[in-house]
């Protein structure tokens, strides 16, 4: 019986006007988005390559001058644009995309100036994720809001239930058919968009592409499952389809507009953090304390590397670095926690929930940045060990390690090829899945709960 219901519902959906309009809109937006991605990606890669070449040139120049210059210079490493940005950009253009480091410390992160045009309003890229979040979430509700109340109005609901079919089976059939219709709409768009991107030559057809596409479809279906369940809930909660529609639209506005746009307010209200000015004052206070307790002559300088005061200054500068690092690293952890807790709270809406899941599919966004941030700390340790080893081999160096000065460690040049370089490793399956496991569970539970609620209401629904 379920098969009959499914067949009837799917055919009903496929022949409807809303399917035709949705499909046309979706295919148009998918193709337009893909062409835009190809065009934008070329420019982004060109900018990145220029910036990377400049980064390496500077390193080479400093390596030629001296190993110490190379070690103490603070520079910003920029993250490479992802080739799978057509699936989801994961808002990377607004997230920090550069890490400031030297051999002595990973200092901070920043959103590199010029990443976005400040005169443009904030925008989402027209990628698969955006299309699913905006249009398909709407369509998922549109295909289910009158599944029960609409049939009641046309009097076919009573007729359907006069057969030997349970209410559970009927509702489940409508639910699954809505999800399958959703799939029938999203698949052509994804195939066409994939073709555009593949034919452009920016992406190659390989197992990664296939797996990411399948992964995306799975998380898109999960989102559709929650929204379709909400659509059914609206349908069984109202006596006529007009009210169901208004309820569904209210839910959609809540999920797509209100919750995602309230995230900053949620973060500031529920998970407050210290102000940056307060942290800066803390750092200055720590510096003052260290300066006061430093032996006299700690700031004396001359071109003579063996000037005894240089050792005092090196000690003081290392202590200052450690003090600042302690304060700032603790602050960065509080920023991460605030962001993560806010994401968890906004997962009350299936749309942000879906966005967080796509980060795992594409290996981008916040989890990617956290991985690079952590990997950079490992790299910085290697870089420092490399520098200390070089310095130890130089008999002309006093070996007074100063993270900011160039006077009292080796002044010999270093072969650039031997200098350790940071290479971003792609996220492994475990690294992608672990941070979003909680969102995955929330999604499944959410869909089941809302469907169960719809079922509970439908059991008591007056079909006449």
């Amino acid at each position, binding site marked *: 019986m379920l098969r009959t219901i499914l067949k009837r519902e799917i055919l009903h959906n496929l022949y409807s006007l809303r399917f035709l309009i949705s499909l046309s809109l979706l295919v148009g937006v998918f193709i337009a988005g893909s062409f835009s991605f190809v065009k934008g990606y070329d*420019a982004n890669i060109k900018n990145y390559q220029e910036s990377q070449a*400049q980064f390496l040139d500077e390193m080479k120049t400093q390596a030629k001058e001296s190993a110490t210059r190379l070690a103490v210079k603070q520079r910003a490493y920029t993250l490479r644009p992802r080739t799978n940005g057509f699936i989801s950009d994961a808002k990377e253009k607004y997230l920090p995309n550069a890490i400031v480091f030297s051999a002595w410390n990973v200092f901070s992160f920043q959103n590199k100036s010029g990443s*976005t045009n400040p005169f*443009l*309003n904030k925008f989402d890229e027209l990628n698969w994720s955006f299309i699913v979040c905006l249009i398909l979430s709407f369509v998922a509700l549109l295909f289910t809001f009158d599944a029960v109340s609409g049939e009641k109005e046309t009097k076919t609901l009573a007729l359907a239930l006069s057969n030997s079919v349970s209410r559970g089976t009927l509702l489940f059939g409508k639910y699954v058919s809505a999800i399958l219709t959703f799939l029938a709409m999203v698949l052509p768009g994804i195939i066409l968009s994939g073709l555009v991107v593949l034919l452009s030559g920016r992406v190659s057809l390989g197992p990664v592409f296939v797996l990411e596409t399948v992964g995306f479809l799975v998380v898109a279906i999960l989102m559709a499952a929650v929204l379709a369940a909400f659509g059914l809930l609206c349908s069984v909660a109202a006596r006529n389809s007009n009210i169901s529609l208004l309820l569904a639209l209210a839910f959609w506005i809540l999920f797509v507009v209100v919750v995602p746009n309230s995230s900053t*307010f949620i973060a500031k209200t529920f998970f407050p953090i210290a102000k940056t000015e307060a942290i800066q004052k803390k750092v200055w206070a720590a510096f003052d304390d260290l300066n006061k307790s430093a032996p006299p002559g700690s700031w004396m300088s001359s071109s003579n590397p063996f000037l005894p005061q240089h050792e005092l200054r090196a000690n003081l500068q290392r202590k200052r670095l450690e003090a600042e690092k302690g304060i700032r690293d603790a602050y960065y952890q509080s920023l991460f926690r605030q962001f993560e807790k806010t994401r968890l709270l906004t997962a009350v809406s299936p749309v942000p929930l879906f966005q967080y899941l796509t980060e795992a599919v594409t290996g981008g966004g916040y989890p990617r940045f956290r991985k690079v941030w952590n990997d950079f700390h490992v790299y910085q340790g290697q870089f420092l060990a490399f520098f200390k080893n070089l310095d130890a081999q130089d008999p002309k160096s006093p070996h007074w390690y100063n993270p900011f000065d160039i006077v009292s460690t080796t002044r010999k040049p270093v072969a650039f090829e031997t200098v350790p370089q940071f290479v971003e490793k792609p996220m492994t399956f475990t690294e992608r899945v672990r941070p979003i496991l909680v969102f995955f569970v929330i999604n499944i539970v959410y869909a089941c709960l809302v469907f169960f609620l719809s079922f509970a209401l439908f059991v008591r629904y007056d079909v006449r």
Partner: protein
Amino acid sequence: MVLQIAKKDFLNNLLSARFTIGFVLCLVLIPFSILISIDDYRDQARLYQLNRDSADQDIKSVRVYSALRPEVVKPPEPLSIFSKGISGNVGNRVKIYLGEKPMLAAGKPMARDNPYLNAFFSIDFVGITAIIFALLALIFSYDVFTREKEDGTLRLQMSNSLSRSRFLAAKVLGIFLTLLPILLFCYLLGAVIILLSRNPSFSAVEWGRIALLFAASLLYLAVFIFIGLLVSTRCKTSVTSLIICLFLWVFFVFVIPNLSVYFANSFVRVQSRDNLTRVIEDLDKELRRKIVDYFKTLPKPDWEMNWYYDAGGGDGCKELYGSSKSLFERERLSSAYSEPLRIDYADKKWASQKAYLESLAHQQSVADRISLISPAGIFRGVAAAICLSDANSQDRFMELTREYRETFIRYLESKNIFSSFRYITPTPPYSFMTGDEIIEKRTGGEFKTQKALDEWAGRQKDRMSSFEKLGKVEIPGTQPGDYPYLDISDMPRFHEQPKLLFTGLESTIVNIGLILIECVILFYVGFVAFIRYDVR
């Protein structure tokens, strides 16, 4: 008759579920958006206060003109509570340098302490209004004719001596009568929340601009009502009309505003910021080289030591104390040469900076032009201009800071300050001493000349021991603390352009005209379609 039909429709709508749900949505979302925006505004105001205090403190605590570099801090715009525009993307601080013209404001956008929160978007009153009222207008107009046709009442109405145009006018009036109170209620609610919150307090001009925003909202509402009417005249059933209206809503309100910016971002390239930075760095290197070359041609001083020297501020900042007369003179000559050259180089840099800014502005204008496809895009643009949070307002502010820089330079030049000792030291020239005189005084007469001191130091194990001898007797007037801060009461201050009712709205006249034309065309097409409508 027209009024009777309008009244009937109004009462019908008033009792409908769509009115209740629409009203509840406004009741929840409008205060929510206003409260969030007020909270954001207060954060920005707090940051503004901190930045302004710090800028005031900095400018008051300088002793030489080379360190005098005022900072302009832009106050947050109270009207941004209604429409944030691009105010969240740009900074609020502009430091006035001789060596560079102001290009983009610095500072923390949106007063957010956590940069990760930039990944979250936020919505304002205008955003909510654009979404809700477009939806309400379509929901109330999609079935104006189709529903009556389905119920059979349309035929009945047309059988009376009522012209179709009058009937259409009555229907439009009915919808306006239904939606106008909700729109008015939203604005009043927003105004009451702002009045109750007391911070910010709005001036008469700002309330006037809110009235303009209300007028723009009315036009926006009208466009969507006419779209709904048009769809209703072209569809046979209410369901078809509803589905088309809802898709148009999503397309116009969500897809186009986003698509316009994304297309402009992808297809219109802006110059690379890294390239611009490189060009500026190269020019800076060239400038430094010229200054160093000139410096080498200057006569060497008799004693190369400053008792206090600070050049930490950059941009030609030099603060000297306790130097010899010849060293002061060399630094004075150096500044007299370097500072006018620095100003010339700012003009050279500006050529590249301007090209970069123009590429940003071009990209933004393309996005604006694409967004004209959607009434929501036009409305948001107009609203941002009314609330002074659009790109033009920011551009005007930056232009004023550039003009202020010119005024500031003229102020310095009027004092002939670059070739004056006051540019580098507050020490009066009559108190300058030769190197030998300084050494004799500082060593308490133990050494008469620099040569004698150097010979003695050369015999010591610790070469730094000569500093101990020089520290024996302190000479008054050789430390910054010995001098008062500069009197800058005559320095020109930055003044923002006075805010008038129509300031900055020149560029939006075309957009407002477009909405009006859209209204007229949509209404006319809807009218023609209804004239030919088969009411059976």
